[in-house]
């Protein structure tokens, strides 16, 4: 199962958990599982980018997640 790390600002919506394990083949499935498990977290997820094993995707979608993947939710960034 992939290990998912949340920024501390979101742990208020997960009962204080900052690291979770989730089985999901793709990022979209992982986010859907997160939102289902923690309904209050769902509305917060539209402003996050997702890092999978160090690569950050601004528009997280169908990137593959491996069972050994380290996934970080990070602030979505706008550039100039």
């Amino acid at each position: 199962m992939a290990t998912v790390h949340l920024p501390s600002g979101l742990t208020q919506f997960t009962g204080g958990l900052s690291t979770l394990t989730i089985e999901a083949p793709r990022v979209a499935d992982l986010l859907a599982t997160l939102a289902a498990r923690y309904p209050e977290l769902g509305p917060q997820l539209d402003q996050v980018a997702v890092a999978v094993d160090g690569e950050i995707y601004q528009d997280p979608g169908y990137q593959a997640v491996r069972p050994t993947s380290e996934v970080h939710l990070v602030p979505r960034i706008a550039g100039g």
Partner: protein
Amino acid sequence: MSERVFKYIGTRPIRHDGVDKVTGRANYGADLTLPGMLHGAVLRSPHAHARIVSIDTSAAEAVAGIKAIVTGKDFPETTAKLALGEAAIDLHDIADNVIARTKVLYGGHAVAAVAATNPDAAREALSKINVVYDVLKPVLTVDQATAPNAPILHDAMVTKGVKDAKGPTNVAARMELKRGDVEKGFAEADVVVEREYRTPTVHQGYIEPHACVARFGEDGRAVVWCSTQGPFAVRDQVAAIVGIDPALVKVIPSEIGGGFGGKIVVYLEPLAVALSRKAQRPVKMVMSRDEVFKASGPTSGTKIRVKIGAKRDGTVTAASASLYYEAGAYRGSPAGAGMACAYAPYKFPNFFIEAFDVVVNKPKVAAYRAPGSPMASFAVESTLDEIARELRLDAVDLRLKNAAAEGDHAPYGPAYGPIGVKTILDAVKNHPHWSAPLGRNQGRGLALGFWFNGGMNSSATVLLNPDGSAAVITGNPDIGGTRAAQALMVSEELGIPVERVRPIVADTDTSGMTDVTGGSRVCYATGMAVINAARDVREQLRARAAKIWDVDVESIKWEDGQAIPPPGVEKAPHPLGVADIGAKMAHTGGPIVGRASLYAPMAGPGFGAHICDLEVDPETGRTTILRYTAFQDVGKAVHPSYVEGQIQGGAAQGIGWALNEEYVYNPSGLMENAGFLDYRMPVASDLPMIETVLIEVANPLHPYGVRGVGEVPIVPPLAAVANAVRQATGIRFTELPLSPPRVLAGIEQASRQPVGVS
């Protein structure tokens, strides 16, 4: 990757668009004129905060030459969100920012627009539009916006990121990052420094104002010519705001005279399309400089509190920060980015960072070169300078002691790949600038800076001509020399001279979908698409050579721009160059076109360090920059001259931010210095030649190692300048700009202490 020897990458050819630009032939946003074209103008709010009671346009409609008038009622309500790549944008807010419906939220907010046969008639009509306002008290700072009983901008706003938050409030969002045990870390520190910093609202200051021409045809199709960083972003915003099918909108980007993030969101384009639809004639709209300052997006004014604790040897044990960023009139400041960037160059074991996005009665902020990072860096790097002083440590050594390296986790989560922080700091330490002597009233400052560098959607097409020349088509307006960089990439992959590659910036009907020219992403992400498209051409050339020689394509090598046949092939000519194969295109299968499109992850992190030497005149408070050296890990410099130019430009903008630039507001909340005479940006004669040191730690995500360059260099200057002023004057200034009046007041407040090298 690092062993690859390049033939064209790393050379410095003259840019393909250079002659047109220096001779004035290049067409910018305001240069287009169409038959029957009308002139548009915008009526803007004279109040910083007011309810619109009524708008009466009847007298304006009677002005001779007036062909169309629009107000907020002419635009549909939309609640859609648009993923523009760089940011998910709330179209309701953008539409309301383009033209106010029920409230004006800053001085300069558009309330009506007109189109007339000449500019004088348009201006006269504006003067005859009668708007009745119910004037409200404005809030102009985060302190005012967050005070008890503060006037509220948006009645429905609640704080995102806070569980069970109640509104209404002016705090649009709260974000937080944490690692380790901060209190324990501070308890272990031998020295703790805590300061509060403020930075003003500043503008990107692009020389070319916003400008466009729109033509809405009888067939319901709209064509928009405009100066923009993102034609596809303009297309999608215009369609949603005006309420038409995006399939009916075509956007043709002009040359662009600077953007720096400020030409991604639309301001004039929806108004021009709506006016053209009403008038059934083309409409041109051009902002004045006054309008650019008051009604386009600057970047956030900020209040930042930083606390850092360290051991005597310089090891930082804990750090905390509270960042308050003004968003302007609608939610969406770069506070989150500031939070992520603040401690990014370092491997602090314990930290706590919180960031607040706060709405105020100023223009909605837009992206500005590494949005959010320069202010955070100013606060953190100034505090680290104080730590170094208290511990009597060299500023480079303190940073080396705490510098992040490959494998360390970024404050925002993931582990870093190969990064250049320590390599940069070693280069600083070994550079003669760092040890050069200083004179009386002079000081030297050092600061680090970080930016992510973007990825996202890019497309490219490479067309081969029968003579062996090529064209490369992308949808990215060329701001920083990307045409030349893309041509170099095609040259490298095909082995043809860069002068024989024509780079083309195409419109939204011609190029594959491509995200904006921004986020330092073009050379990296669109560059990868260009490389892949050129490789597509190369594979087709191999296949054509195989046909010519009647051998298996797998047996053909490609070396130095030529197809090499397998041993035993006697048929002449061989080897076959690009022009040889191109000449036989018609006989071997027809034209050769390469294409590629991709979605790139964010590029490798970019870091830089700047050294600033300056002299402060103790009589006037005026600061003169004496010497400036910028070090940056650029991954791979495709065209070193334009990489250096980006770094010099970013440094110059950052120096302006540090020394002079600020929006000045009167008590009513109206900007008082909306012009370049009173909003002081640095010009060439203000600065010495900025020396650049390019460091190349290859980015493993790019085939050449490209990292992205354009944003990092605006991050360090704020603190580099402030730290130098600290050394020159003995005074720690915590509020920007360090303009002569502020510096002089600081010197006088310090009881005219002797000024000199400390």
